[in-house]
Structures are given as structure tokens and as C-alpha cells.
């Protein structure tokens, strides 16, 4: 087993843990998942050989381990999002009474150019951390773990229409944070 890989994995551990906690919202379970993830890489380091990036590779393994844990857990969840919802509804706040937007969403420009920038993903992580816990959880299940809505509803015990609204709210919040903390700055820098 190569010493270099060991060191590299060690360096990635805090970030892995952060992402696992963000999704699982349980420190102990997240620790286990990260441990399993690191073991999986260490047991078969040859599988990584030739992959473009260790981070990409290990993120893929982490996602699979998280999904395994979610599916295996037979604990009945009471997923009540009511406590995530604030008084001023994030949806209504965007629109006038006639259904028009109050502020027109700005164009975010070329997605590929944005996604090439490492700092963008930094900002996105911060924005995900700022989401209310349950909102972040369902959003990441859908968009990061790429689970189907049907499975998410089963896991969380929510109706599909409820899930759609929760995901919509999550998107609006994340959008607002990205717009403020990334795209807003980008616009002022280039002008």
C-alpha cells in the first residue's frame, strides 16, 4: 500500500466527513461512512489507478456508502419539515400578487465556465451548509446522490407533492445564496 495514497486520503478525511454530515446529519453515522469509504479505497487501491482524480473517485464511493446506509436503516423517520419553514415564505417572497417576479433573475452566464472554477464549489458548499438541515438533506438526496423522487419520498415518509415543494424551496434558497455570494460578485468584478 502506498504511503503517498495514505497521506492523500488522510488529507481528504475532514472534507469527506463534512460532506457526510451535511447529507446524513448524524456525526456518528457520518464517521462510520467515511471510515468505510477510506477502507474501500485502501483495500483496492488498484481500482483507483488511472482515474482522473482521487477526489472524484472517492466522492463517488462516499455517495454510494451514504446511499447504502440510508437504505439499510430501518428506523422510521418522522421527517417533519414544518420547523424548517420560516414565516415569510421563500416562494411568495419572490412574486407580486399578479404572479410576476419582483426582481428579475439575472442571467448566470456560461455554466461550463462557472463549473471550471474551484471557488464556485467552495461557495456552493457554504450555501448548502446555510440551508436549513432538512431542506439540505432532501435537496442533496435528489441532486447530489441523484435519488429518484419516489425513493426519497419512501425514505423520508413524505408525499410526492410535499417533496416537490420542499425541493423547490431548497432550490430557491440555494439560488439566492449563490446569486448573492458568487454571481453578484462576478458581475461587479467584470463591469
Amino acid at each position, binding site marked *: 500500500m502506498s504511503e503517498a495514497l495514505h497521506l492523500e486520503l488522510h*488529507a481528504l478525511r475532514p472534507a469527506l466527513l463534512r460532506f457526510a454530515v451535511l447529507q446524513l446529519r448524524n456525526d456518528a453515522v457520518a464517521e462510520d461512512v467515511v471510515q468505510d469509504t477510506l477502507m474501500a479505497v485502501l483495500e483496492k487501491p488498484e481500482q483507483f489507478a488511472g482515474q482522473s482524480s482521487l477526489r*472524484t473517485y472517492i466522492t463517488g464511493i462516499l455517495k454510494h456508502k451514504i446511499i447504502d446506509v440510508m437504505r439499510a436503516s430501518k428506523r422510521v423517520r418522522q421527517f417533519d419539515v414544518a420547523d424548517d419553514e420560516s414565516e415569510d415564505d421563500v416562494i411568495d417572497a419572490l412574486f407580486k400578487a399578479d404572479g410576476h*417576479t419582483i426582481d428579475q433573475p439575472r442571467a*448566470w452566464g456560461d*455554466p461550463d465556465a462557472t463549473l471550471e472554477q474551484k471557488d464556485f464549489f467552495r461557495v*456552493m*458548499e457554504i450555501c448548502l451548509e446555510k440551508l436549513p438541515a432538512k431542506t439540505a438533506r432532501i435537496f442533496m438526496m435528489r441532486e447530489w446522490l441523484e435519488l429518484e423522487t419516489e425513493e426519497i419520498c419512501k425514505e423520508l415518509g413524505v408525499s410526492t407533492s410535499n417533496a416537490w415543494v420542499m425541493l423547490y424551496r431548497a432550490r430557491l434558497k440555494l439560488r439566492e445564496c449563490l446569486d448573492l455570494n458568487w454571481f453578484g460578485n462576478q458581475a461587479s468584478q467584470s463591469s
Partner: protein
Amino acid sequence: MRFKLTCKETHRLISEGLDRDLSIYERLLMRLHLTVCDACTNFDGQMALMRKAMRNLTIPEDGKQPRDR
């Protein structure tokens, strides 16, 4: 549903379209709205970018806590 969608309805359909198959009718109404509405077109682009970004989201290079910066 009426023939014309509001921005509020269109925003919601854009999001739901990421989670379920929209009906042909919903898609048609949405298209019609998007051809005349910059606000919703921009929103649609923002949602597409977010989806792409989330799918590309990997753990960052170092273990630094972003909130410490």
C-alpha cells in the same frame, strides 16, 4: 390550468420538471411562457446550472473548513 402561465406558475413547473415528467400540456404552456419571458428563461438557466453543479460536486481539495476563511 389556463392557457397562459404566470411567472410564479412557470418557476414552479421549472423546478418540478427536474423531479417529475411534466405533461405535454404543461411543457407546451411552459415553452410558450419562456419564449416571451426573460425572467423565467434566466431562472430556467439558473436551475440547469445548479443541477449540473450538484452532480459535479466533489469534496474540495484540502480539508480546510470553508467557514474559517
